[in-house]
C-alpha cells in the first residue's frame, strides 16, 4: 500500500516536471514578442531614438531577464546543425533555482513569482476549499436521497445531467446576470472584493462583506463540481443496493435510508474516492474561469492575465502549483482508501 502510494506520487511528480519543462521550453522560444511586451515604451522610443538604440535596449532587457542565454542543453545554430551548450543555459538555471524553491521573477511586475502566487492563493484557497467541501457534502446528501428513488428522481437526474453538460463560465455568467444584476435581482455584489477591504469598517462587517462577495463564486464552482460526484455516487449506490447484503438488510425491516447510510454507502464510496484526486486540480482550473467572471484577485485570474500578457514565469509557476494540487489530491485519495477499505489496511 505504502509502496504503491509512493509510486503513484513519484510518477505524478515526474509527469508534473515533464509538463512544466515542456511549457517552459515551448514558451521561452518566442523571445521577440516577450521583450516587446516587457518594454511597453518601445513605441515611444521608436520615435525618438534610432533602431540601433532600440535594439540595444531590447538586448539589455533580455540580459536582465536572463533570456540572452541559450534555451536548452543542446541547441540549433542558425546554420544547420546541433551543438552542445553546456550547463550555461536557461533551462538549467530555471531547474536549479526551482530545486532551491525559487520560481523566478515575473516579467511584467518584477516581483518574485512565489510571492505573487502566495498572495493570490490567499484568495483562491478559501474559495476552492469551500467549494470542494460543499460539493462533496452536497453530493453525499443528494446521492443518498436519489438512490432511494423518490418521486423527483427522474427530474433530479435530468437537472444534474444538464448542469454537468454546461461549461462553468455559462453557469457563472448566469448566476451573475440573474442574482447580481441591477436590472434583475441585485441580491449579491457583482465585482471584486474592493469594498470588502474598506479600512474604515470594523472586522465583523469586513468579514460579513467578504463572505457576501464569495457566495456567488463558491456557488458557481460547487454547481460545476457537484453533478459529476453525485451521478457517479448514485450509480454506485444503485449498483450496491442490488447486492445480497442489501437485500438481507431490507428483509430485516430496515428503512431504505438506513440501509444506505449504515450498510451500502461505505462500499459505494470506493469508486468515488478516485474522483477526489480529480477534484482539486479541476477546481484550480475552475477558479480560472470563476475569478475572471467575478473579478476576484486570485490565482486563476493571475494565470489568465499572465497568459494574456505572456508572463511565462507565472504560467510555469501556475502549472507547477496545479501539479502540486494533483499530488496532494492523490495523497488524500490514498489516505481515504485506507480509511474506507479495511482490506487495504490489513494488507499494509
Amino acid at each position, binding site marked *: 500500500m505504502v509502496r504503491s502510494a509512493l509510486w503513484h506520487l513519484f510518477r505524478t511528480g515526474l*509527469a*508534473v516536471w515533464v509538463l512544466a519543462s515542456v511549457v517552459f521550453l515551448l514558451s521561452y522560444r518566442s523571445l521577440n514578442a516577450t521583450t516587446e511586451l516587457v518594454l511597453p515604451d518601445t513605441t515611444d522610443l521608436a520615435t525618438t531614438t534610432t533602431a540601433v538604440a532600440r535594439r540595444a535596449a531590447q538586448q539589455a532587457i533580455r540580459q536582465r531577464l536572463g533570456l540572452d542565454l541559450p534555451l536548452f542543453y543542446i541547441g540549433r545554430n542558425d546554420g544547420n*546543425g*546541433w551543438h552542445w551548450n553546456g550547463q550555461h543555459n536557461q533551462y538549467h538555471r530555471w531547474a536549479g533555482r526551482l530545486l532551491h524553491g525559487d520560481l523566478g521573477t515575473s516579467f511584467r511586475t518584477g516581483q518574485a513569482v512565489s510571492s505573487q502566487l502566495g498572495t493570490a492563493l490567499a484568495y483562491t484557497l478559501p474559495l476552492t476549499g469551500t467549494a470542494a467541501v460543499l460539493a462533496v457534502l452536497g453530493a453525499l446528501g443528494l446521492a443518498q436521497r436519489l438512490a432511494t428513488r423518490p418521486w423527483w428522481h427522474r427530474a433530479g437526474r435530468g437537472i444534474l445531467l444538464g448542469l454537468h453538460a*454546461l461549461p462553468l463560465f455559462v453557469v457563472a455568467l448566469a448566476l451573475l446576470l440573474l442574482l447580481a*444584476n*441591477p436590472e434583475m435581482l441585485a441580491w449579491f455584489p457583482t465585482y471584486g472584493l474592493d469594498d470588502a477591504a474598506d479600512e474604515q469598517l470594523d472586522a465583523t462587517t469586513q468579514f460579513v462583506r467578504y463572505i457576501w462577495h464569495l457566495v456567488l463564486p463558491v456557488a458557481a464552482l460547487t454547481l460545476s463540481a457537484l453533478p459529476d460526484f453525485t451521478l457517479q455516487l448514485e450509480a454506485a449506490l444503485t449498483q450496491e443496493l442490488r447486492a445480497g447484503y442489501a437485500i438481507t438488510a431490507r428483509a430485516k425491516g430496515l428503512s431504505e435510508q438506513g440501509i444506505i447510510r449504515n450498510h451500502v454507502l461505505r462500499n459505494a464510496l470506493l469508486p468515488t474516492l478516485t474522483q477526489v484526486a480529480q477534484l482539486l486540480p479541476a477546481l484550480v*482550473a475552475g477558479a480560472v474561469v470563476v475569478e475572471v467572471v467575478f473579478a476576484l484577485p486570485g490565482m486563476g485570474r493571475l494565470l*489568465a492575465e499572465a497568459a494574456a500578457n505572456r508572463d511565462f514565469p507565472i*504560467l510555469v509557476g501556475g502549472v507547477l502549483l496545479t501539479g502540486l494540487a494533483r499530488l496532494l489530491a492523490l495523497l488524500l485519495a490514498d489516505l481515504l482508501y485506507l480509511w474506507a477499505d479495511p482490506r487495504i489496511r490489513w494488507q499494509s
Partner: protein
Amino acid sequence: MGRPSYPLAVLIFSRSWPQRIALGWLSVVLLTAALAPVLPLPYLPNVPDLSQVSQPPFSIGKHWLGTDSQGLDILSQLVFGARTAVALTLPATVMAALLGAIAGGAAGFWLNQSRLAAPYWLLLVACVWWALSLPWPWLVLVGAAAASGCLLAIAKWRQRPLPAWRLPLDSIVMAIATTLDTIPRLILVVAIAAGTSVAIQGMLLLLALTSWPQPARLVRAQMLRVRVLPFVEAARATGFSPGRVWLWHALPHAVQPLRAAFPLSMAGLLGLESTLSFLGIGLPPNVASWGRLLAGIRHDQSAWWIAFFPCLCLITSILSLYILSRHQSSQP
C-alpha cells in the same frame, strides 16, 4: 464499421423526438457554419456600426438581434462564431479520436510484448536522425537501408528469423496519456497557447494533442477484451500478419465505445473552445466566437441580449450532443 449502414431516412426517423430535435439543431449549426460567407447577412461580423451601439434586438435598423457595446452585429457574430466552433471542434475531435484509436488500439493489442525486427529499429533511428538534422543525414539513411538489406539477406541465407528487440508500446502510450492527464486540460492549453501565438490551425493541433488520452483509454480497454475473443484467434490462425489482424479484425470492434464518446468529447471541446475565447486566450481577437461574444456582457450588464443568444446557442449545441451520445450508448 462493423454495422450495417442505415439509409438516411432510417437514421432520422428511427429516433425519438428529443433526438430528432438535437439532430436538426446540429445540422442547422453545421449548415450555418458551412454557408456563413454566402448567407445574406446585412452586416459583416468585424465591421462596427458606430451609429448604432448597444441596440436591443428587433429595434429599428437591420440589426435583428441587436448590437454590442462596440456596435458589432450580434447575428453575424453568432453565424461566424458557429463557423469557428465547427471548424475547430469537429476536426479536433476527429483527430483526437483517430489518434486515440490508433495509440490505444495498438497499446491494447500488442501490450508490451511486441517485438520489432532490427531493420525497423535501424530505419527508425535513421528517420529520427534525419528529422533532427544531425550531421550527414542522407549518409545515415543510406547506411541504415544498406544495413537492413544486409540483415535481411543474412536472415534469408541462413534461414533464421530476423533479430528483434522488444518495444514497450503499452507503457509508452500509457505514460504519455497519464502525463497529459495530470494537469487539467484548461490550464495546460492556456499555458501553451499563451507561449505559441497560435492561429486556428495551431489551436486545432493543440486541442487534438491534449485530448486524445480519453479515447485512447476507452479503445485500449475494449481492445484488451477483444484481443482474446475467438474470432481474433481465428484470424491469427489463418496466418494473417499481426498488423492485418489488428487493423481489419480487432480494431473495428475495439473502436465501438467511441461511438458514444464522440459526441461527448465534442461537447467537451466545444465548452473548452468557448471558455478559451471567453478568457481571450488562444485565437486572435478578430475571429468571431460565441465565447468572445459572451465576454462582452461584462462591459455592459444591462444588455441581456449580448449574453442570451450565444448562451442559447452554446447550451443547445452541448445538450444536443449529450442527447445524441445517450442514443448511441443505448443502442445494443
